């Protein structure tokens, strides 16, 4: 593993700014961080089916990449990292949170199935996930990239004047996965815990500016991540990447006294920006969305509640609540912010829900 002192800027002139670009990615997520000297950090990557933005190879061409980070081992956060890891010539390291990769991959190449006419479809659904992870980690292994495993006990990482705090996952969570691997290896049919629990929550501090990237972290993750955030004495975040596509299982809307949720980590003045990837029609949860709107300026790459006119139901199933899984409407193909060290920031692209004509009311 390279030492932090080797983490040098890619150009001699500093912009003095930290830039974050969020790209619409279908039902997934893509976040590019441009550090003050021009080097990149990639946190997750997934292509867009809508064609509203350049391919990731174009976005990263000619730039030094400090790190490629798979925030957790789900395809909607990592499919577009494969071409980067396979062919980008200048990658410093690969970051991930998957514990015991070889055991994890072994586990996901086995699945529970049933004797039935749809058996092959179960097999195919699981094969897609297995192939994604084999392709990504296979490319990392083939290039023999420097690998850094992330968990909340890792010390803050310095990249070009920016400090990255790893607030999740806890080692305890990772151990639950390891325990499952062992039981399966012993022949017991035990299901893996939810891989969203492996979500890497990153807080990026640049001077007095803090950005909080929430991956798909669940309530369980946030109960410890909020504590670690406060222990690190970080200023309140100016920008939040809303966790888990705005799902209700990530946000304690009415927390008990003394219990914090991720919105409690955000600034009050100035009002924070909340960036939402909600690429399928089930996301965000209406209650979470209302809570976000009340507390932050929300900007969406996509939003399943936006501009809904009819429920997709190609099979014509007349059960209340029955609807096909469809992609959401695209709100912004790209949302960009630039931060300075003094807590100032500018939004370059993307419009917020307060002025968006299709935003849910």
């Amino acid at each position: 593993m390279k030492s932090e002192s080797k983490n040098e800027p890619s150009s001699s002139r500093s912009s003095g700014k930290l830039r974050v670009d969020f790209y619409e990615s279908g039902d997934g997520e893509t976040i590019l961080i441009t550090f003050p000297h021009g080097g990149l950090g990639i946190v997750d990557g997934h292509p867009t089916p809508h064609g509203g933005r350049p391919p990731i190879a174009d976005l990263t061409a000619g730039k030094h990449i400090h790190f490629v980070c798979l925030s957790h081992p789900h395809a909607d956060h990592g499919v577009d990292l494969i071409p980067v890891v396979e062919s980008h010539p200048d990658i410093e390291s690969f970051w991930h949170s998957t514990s015991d990769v070889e055991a994890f991959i072994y586990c996901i190449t086995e699945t529970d199935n049933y004797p039935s006419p749809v058996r092959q479809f179960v097999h195919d659904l699981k094969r897609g996930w297995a192939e994604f992870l084999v392709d990504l980690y296979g490319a990392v292994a083939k290039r023999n990239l420097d690998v850094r495993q992330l968990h909340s006990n890792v010390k803050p990482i310095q990249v070009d004047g920016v400090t990255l705090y790893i607030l999740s996952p806890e080692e305890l969570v990772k151990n639950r996965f390891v325990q499952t691997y062992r039981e399966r290896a012993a022949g017991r049919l035990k299901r893996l815990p939810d891989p969203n629990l492996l979500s890497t929550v990153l807080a990026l501090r640049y001077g007095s500016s803090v950005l909080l990237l929430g991956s798909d972290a669940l309530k369980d993750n946030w109960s410890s991540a909020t504590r670690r955030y406060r222990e690190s004495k970080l200023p309140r975040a100016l920008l939040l990447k809303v966790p888990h596509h705005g799902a209700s299982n990530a946000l304690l809307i009415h927390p008990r006294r003394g219990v914090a949720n991720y919105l409690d980590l955000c600034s009050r003045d100035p009002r924070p920006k909340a960036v939402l990837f909600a690429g399928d029609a089930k996301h965000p949860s209406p209650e979470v969305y209302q809570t976000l709107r009340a507390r932050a300026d929300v900007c969406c790459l996509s939003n399943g509640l936006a501009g809904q006119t009819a429920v997709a139901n190609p099979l014509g199933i007349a059960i209340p609540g029955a609807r096909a899984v469809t992609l959401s409407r695209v709100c912004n193909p790209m949302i960009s912010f630039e931060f300075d060290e003094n807590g100032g920031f500018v939004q370059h692209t993307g419009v917020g829900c307060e002025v968006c004509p299709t935003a849910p009311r």
Partner: protein
Amino acid sequence: MISGSAAGRAVAIAEPLETGIAYTVPQAGVTVESIRVRTPEASGRPGKQPKNIRQRVLRRLRGLLIEKQGTESRVAFVENDQPIQYYLPTDRLRMSGIVAQNQPFEMDEVEIQVNDGVPIVGYRFRPSARPSDSFVDSIDLDEERKQKRALIFKKFGKAKS
């Protein structure tokens, strides 16, 4: 009170209905389970006519439970050899014993007509296998991916941080 299974008896299954509504052809081998018919005397309501319930299956969809997401579950129906993913209420599946990830099921769309009333359409779920029927299915990787997996085992098996 008269009670008992109506399968193949008083309840007409798959009879053509003269209502002008376009129906799909019913599938063979479908029976109705445990419908109870109550006589006017036993019901204690004089003058009430015995019910003539006709029920037929309009179509049968096969599917599998992908995952439960709280009050909703994500399922896949297989139609023309293509999976179509849907959200369905979790309770409807759970009450029929469809509770496990990847568990297969059938969903019948059933038309029910009582006496000469307007036909109504309902849905009946049935698991195609019990949770205890599950077995471990190995994903077959192609040769290229087997090589990648071997590389992964080599690199990540020794490089733990």
